[in-house]
């Protein structure tokens, strides 16, 4: 009895396997096209995700580098600032010379008058 039942099971399994394989191979063209489309969409999605995950660390590294450079460079710029202030003091110190330059025409005329007076 058990052997008969096992044989029956074997028959069912074998028939199911054959039918399944045949069915898989004979899927209609529309379904195959739909499956191909789904697969391509999935692969495209994967490629987009891969590209994003590849560039993310690179972008992160670039940003980190920029931050490090900024942090190191900024205090140096702060050190330069007092020198600029000293330069400004120098300019302020020669403020009188600037006044001379602004009134240069007057001083030149004054000089000419003096020369003419001494000559005359």
């Amino acid at each position, binding site marked *: 009895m058990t052997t008969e*039942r096992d*044989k*029956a*099971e074997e*028959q*069912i*399994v074998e*028939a*199911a*396997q*054959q*039918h*399944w394989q045949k*069915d*898989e191979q004979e*899927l209609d063209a529309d*379904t*195959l096209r*739909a*499956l*191909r489309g*789904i*697969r391509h*969409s*999935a*692969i495209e*999605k*994967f*490629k987009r*995700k*891969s590209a994003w995950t590849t560039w993310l660390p690179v972008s992160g590294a670039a940003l980190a580098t920029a931050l490090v450079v900024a942090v190191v460079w900024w205090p140096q710029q702060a050190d330069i600032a007092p020198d600029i202030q000293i330069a400004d003091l120098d300019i302020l110190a020669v403020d009188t010379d600037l006044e001379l330059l602004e009134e240069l025409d007057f001083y030149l005329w004054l000089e000419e008058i003096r020369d003419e007076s001494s000559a005359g």
Partner: protein
Amino acid sequence: MDNSRALDRFLESQERRAYKMAFYATGDREEALEIVQDAMFKLVEKYAHKSEADWGPLFTRIVQNRIKNSYRKRAMTQRWQQWFGANSEDKGDAEIRLPADTHSDPLRESHDSKFVTALEGALKALPTRQQQVFLLRAVQGMDVKQSAFAMSCSEGSIKTHYSRAIHKLKDQLGIFNL
């Protein structure tokens, strides 16, 4: 690392089988395609980084989960329909069945063909879990452990579902003097 080609090859090798599994379970082409799409998208999104050897069991498991979700939705719809008097038949989640495919192909007139047609109808009429376990074990050749992983259940459940499926198939196909 770009393993899109390997992934494409893998999915190509699985797409027909996954579709058939889903179609047997749902009886609906569009729903079956949706299940395959969800499964493929989930695999590439969550498990593409795993080794190729792991893709097979994971993909089968995802397909099975999607089939289960699809049946839950259908069961919920049927319950709502019953509450509102649209459908007086309630078989419960475990006993939800698709109508057996009794459509006869004129070309299938021989004894063998009739047997195959009857087998297909009997398979589609099995409760989903029994049907899927039978397909995994008998048709796809998975062992109990692999089937249990795919179905997210215990090995004992797999044995029980398979045994019940075989008994029902034998009963329904007894007319063919197996």
